[in-house]
């Protein structure tokens, strides 16, 4: 079953065609990779899939847990997030001046079941829901081994942990499909390896479908089940890691070609 289906999407910024007629899909529980040289349009695709940009042409649909297909055309990002789509950002966008725990709790705000008045008088509902949020947040923080730092400011975490927190925060929204924009950027090889394991664990534990953008080929080849390759906004290859490695188009895009 496809949980995400983007058909023939294109986007034009002024005179620049940033993404041209790209069709990608994701099956339930898949771990997809989206690779390509800088400026290929990977992040732009993420932005379209999460509702930040509206594609000039084409359609994007998600299938939620109950099996209903939802077209995200014209939806604002917060509405897209509410169908179970979440993301991280290339340049970390945590709420820096908030604690790690608060960062997690904010992504559950959409499920808040008490009114403002209930918050003021601290109603029974307020207590129950806050407890539920807290437990859920702690559980995810434990999975990424950040529960010991729940009261620290997000800005005071080391870089690698900020990345992890961003992933945890994306999962806390209750998402079924998570887009990770360069999760291993700026990490050293051992951290990258640890992250690869972590992503696998989280994916299995929370039944996630994951799509990630990454430049670290070793990382991508290791964990991705299927890979899309973009170059100048055009999809040039699709397939399992082995096929991608030997695909002449991909080699050309990354290394250039010999002049005869």
């Amino acid at each position, binding site marked *: 079953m496809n949980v995400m289906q983007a058909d023939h999407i294109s986007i034009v910024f002024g005179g620049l065609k940033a993404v041209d007629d790209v069709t990608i899909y994701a099956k339930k529980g898949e771990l997809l990779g989206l690779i390509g040289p800088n400026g290929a349009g990977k992040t732009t695709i993420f932005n379209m899939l*999460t509702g*930040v940009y509206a594609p000039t042409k084409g359609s994007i649909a998600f299938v939620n847990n109950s099996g209903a297909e939802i077209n995200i055309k014209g939806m*604002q*990002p*917060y509405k897209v*997030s*509410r169908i179970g789509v*979440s*993301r991280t*950002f290339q340049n970390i*966008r*945590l*709420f*820096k*001046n*908030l604690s790690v725990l*608060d960062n997690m*709790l*904010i*992504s*559950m*705000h*959409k499920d*808040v079941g*008490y009114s*403002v008045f209930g*918050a*003021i*008088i*601290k109603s*029974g509902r*307020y*207590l129950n*829901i*806050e*407890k539920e*949020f*807290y437990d859920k947040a702690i559980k995810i923080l434990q999975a990424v081994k950040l529960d010991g730092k729940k009261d620290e*400011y997000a*800005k*005071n975490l080391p870089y690698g942990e900020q990345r992890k927190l961003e992933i945890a*925060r*994306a999962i806390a*929204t209750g998402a079924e499909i998570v887009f990770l924009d360069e999760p291993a950027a700026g990490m050293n090889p051992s951290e990258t390896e640890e992250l690869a394991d972590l992503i696998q664990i989280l994916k299995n534990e929370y039944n996630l479908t994951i799509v990630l953008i990454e430049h670290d080929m070793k990382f991508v080849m290791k964990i991705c089940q299927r890979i899309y390759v973009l170059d100048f906004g055009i999809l040039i290859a699709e397939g399992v890691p082995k096929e991608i490695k030997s695909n002449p188009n991909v080699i050309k895009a990354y290394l250039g070609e010999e002049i005869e």
Partner: protein
Amino acid sequence: MIFDKKTRAKSSIKAIIVVCIIYAVMKILMLPQINVINPFYQTIVMKICIEITLALGLNLITGITGQFSLGHAGFMSVGAYTAAYIMLHWTVNLATIIISALAGGIVAGIIAFLIGIPTLRLRGDYLAIATLGFGEIIRILIQTTDKSFLGGAAGLSPIPIYSNFELVFIMAALCYVCINNILKSSYGRSMVSVREDEIASESMGVNITNVKLLAFVAGTFFAGIAGAMYSGYVGFIQPKDFGFMKSIEILMIVVLGGLGNIKGTVAATIILNIIGVILQDFAEIRMILYALLLIIIMIMMCGESPWIIKMRNMLNIKKFNFKGRGKAGA
């Protein structure tokens, strides 16, 4: 964090006791036999309570949600005129006082809602200018209305003097509790998230337009109530009381107390008013001294923590480091 009813009861009782103690101390100091707070100082105490309510409301909008508003005095005037109008036509008793104060808050809130829908899409400086413009529109509208309706430029009087220490104190305390509790809820967290990073909070499913509107309406609701109490405190209101400078004055309190810091707001209101009282003997150079003090406080602030804490640390630590900002602000 509070999750069970027992801790909730404990913290509520604690809050009630604190409020009662502050009230009792103030009341004892006001006794004619003791006379520490004489009738003149009593008016200052009431002014402080009204300003605390105003500043807390603005802190919710500007400090916590990060929406720079310069029209707070405009909303205050809406509340003041609504309440004054009601009180001029009704007899004064506790019920009508409460009704007029609530009406002042609600009318201000409704206007904020209508204004907020288009203007809260703007960011930073643009929002500041839009709200500034709105404040001026209200002032000029009231100025040019028929004299028999809202008094026009000459002002509205005589409004019965119904505000007393109890009323303004309860108002300020309730306002503090409301904003404190909102801050500790998911709504408060979503407001801070909008201040921190709109794009990220939208991606996490927070409807930022709703959150901004909520903060704006709640903040102006308190401004309206404070305005209502103000009209019953001075007995005579005129449009020029609610000009641009009044908004700036409130903003100054919020900034000095620390953006998003509600305890700091209360402390800053008290301290600024005390400074005002101390400086009243220096008629001409008063504004210069006031401005100088502000500059000094701003320099000492130099960091994320409220300047009160900074000052305390400063007194403990012998050497004051002007680069105290640290490396955390990456």
